């Protein structure tokens, strides 16, 4: 049920993000979701793609520093309070979210939220206990 996220180190330089999307496009990689966290000097690009293993290999072949990280993907009803409930559950158990980002699903009226949580297993347990559906890589890649 873990989602494989690819993270890439990028300097804050013109054209670097395009360099990444360019090598991936050429090899037929489809980026499902993307989030860029940055500082003044550098950024970390986080992506959910249709083939994590292949993406990692392509990036490494092109001299990018990249790694695979396990994240949790949750389907959230696209209505007020949807996200709040989940955050509340995690907070109650003192589970800290390192970062998160969201995107909207095309085929349904749901949003998908990606969480990076250090206490990964504990977080999954809490979410499952509360009947919150976790998405699998298969599902996510086929969206």
């Amino acid at each position, binding site marked *: 049920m873990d989602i494989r*996220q690819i*993270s890439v*180190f*990028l*300097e804050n330089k013109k054209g*670097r993000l395009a360099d990444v999307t360019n090598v991936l496009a050429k090899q037929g990689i489809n980026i499902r979701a993307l989030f860029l*966290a*940055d*500082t003044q*000097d*550098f950024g*970390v690009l*986080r992506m959910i793609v249709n083939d994590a293993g292949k993406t990692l290999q392509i990036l490494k072949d092109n*001299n*990018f*520093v*990249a*790694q695979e*990280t396990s994240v949790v993907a949750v389907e959230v009803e696209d209505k007020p309070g949807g996200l709040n409930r989940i955050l509340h559950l995690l907070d109650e158990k003192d589970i800290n979210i*390192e*970062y998160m980002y969201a995107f909207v699903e095309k085929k349904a009226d749901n949003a998908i939220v990606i969480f*990076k949580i250090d206490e990964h297993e504990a977080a999954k347990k809490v979410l499952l206990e509360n009947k919150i559906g976790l998405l699998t890589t298969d599902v996510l890649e086929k969206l």
Partner: protein
Amino acid sequence: MIWNKEYETMEREKLSALQGERLKELITRVYENVPFYRKRMDEAGIKPADINSIKDIARLPFTTKLDMRDVYPYGLLAVPEEDIVEVHTSSGTTGTPVVDAYTHNDIELWKEVMARTLAMGDTTKKDIVQNAYGYGLFTGGLGVHYGAMKIGANLIPISGGNTQRQLQVMQDFKTTVLTCTPSYSLFVAEEGKKAGLDFASLPLRVGLLGAEPWSDGMRKEIEEKLHISAIDIYGLTEIIGPGVSAECEYKDGLHINEDVFYPEIIDPDTGKILPDGEKGELVFTTLTKEGTPVIRFRTRDITYLMREKCQCGRNTVRMHRSLGRTDDMLIIRGVNVFPSQIEEVLMTIQGVEPHYQIVVDRKGQLDSIEVQVEMNDRLFSDEIKNLSKAEKMIEEKLYATLNIHTVVKLVETNSIERSLGKAKRVIDRRQL
């Protein structure tokens, strides 16, 4: 103004004879009292009796910074420890610091050569000297302090930093002579300008500036901005601190106090003495120092000597300002930094690979040093805070060794140029 006419204008023949006598006395003294020198001389097959004139200095072995570090702290002491009245050390940025231990007479010597230095800027007892060199183990602060005391000038021991206060004191006490590093004098000029201070209206007339390399372009800028005459002074902890040489009003090379600090220019590869005017490594012997005398110390500064008579009337030999180094030492804000030290620190950090570059720049008026470190799989994290933490951790480790603040910047893999030969580690953007 010439402080000591007798020594500073002495005829060459008489000066050479004096240097010879002093060398002979020095060598006898160190052979008897310093095992380090005795061993070196024995190895070279030289006895004190072999030294009869200043020319014989060529037969003596050299002393290096490494030698001086190996015998830390008191291995070069030529007098009983109780005769030491003051100690200074180098910043120790390259490892163990170098110790300069002064006897009462050594302090008197320091006062004398610093009085000569201050007199190069026409400093008299009527002057107000604002001493913005740092006080402490660093020799700059107290060196100037002693010289000003000898002259009887009004000495303001303000030390470095706190620029607003420097500007206030400069106005309130009507400073006429400023002593600090050249880069700091420019910083003072900039801050003063921001505060709306008109330096032309102040009595400040001369700056005695040293402890880091600078250029004629920078001199011009300092002179225009502060409305002063900027004079270059030179010294090093291993010899005495400031007071080794300084420019006179003609600013055509630095007059060396050669009656006490004997200079030579050698070929850094062969050790052979080079003729006047030829570029090579500057070497000094302290002819009269008692506490920690130094025989043929290799400064690693590249320069040449000028013996043509100077218009100021002094007869002492002049050295051109340092034209470079035989090593890759950088001087950042008065602190000596070797790229190899930075590399050593980086290599102790888990996950850091030997791909780095050092960018030295002068932002505003102060030197800055940026260390670019290449990202790799072991250092990488998908969390920004971990990457920022890594930068901070490297900065702290560098500070612990170098004693100066650096800015560490993580850069992409392969973004630092790979070279087949000697890697170009340093990009110096300062216009020196």
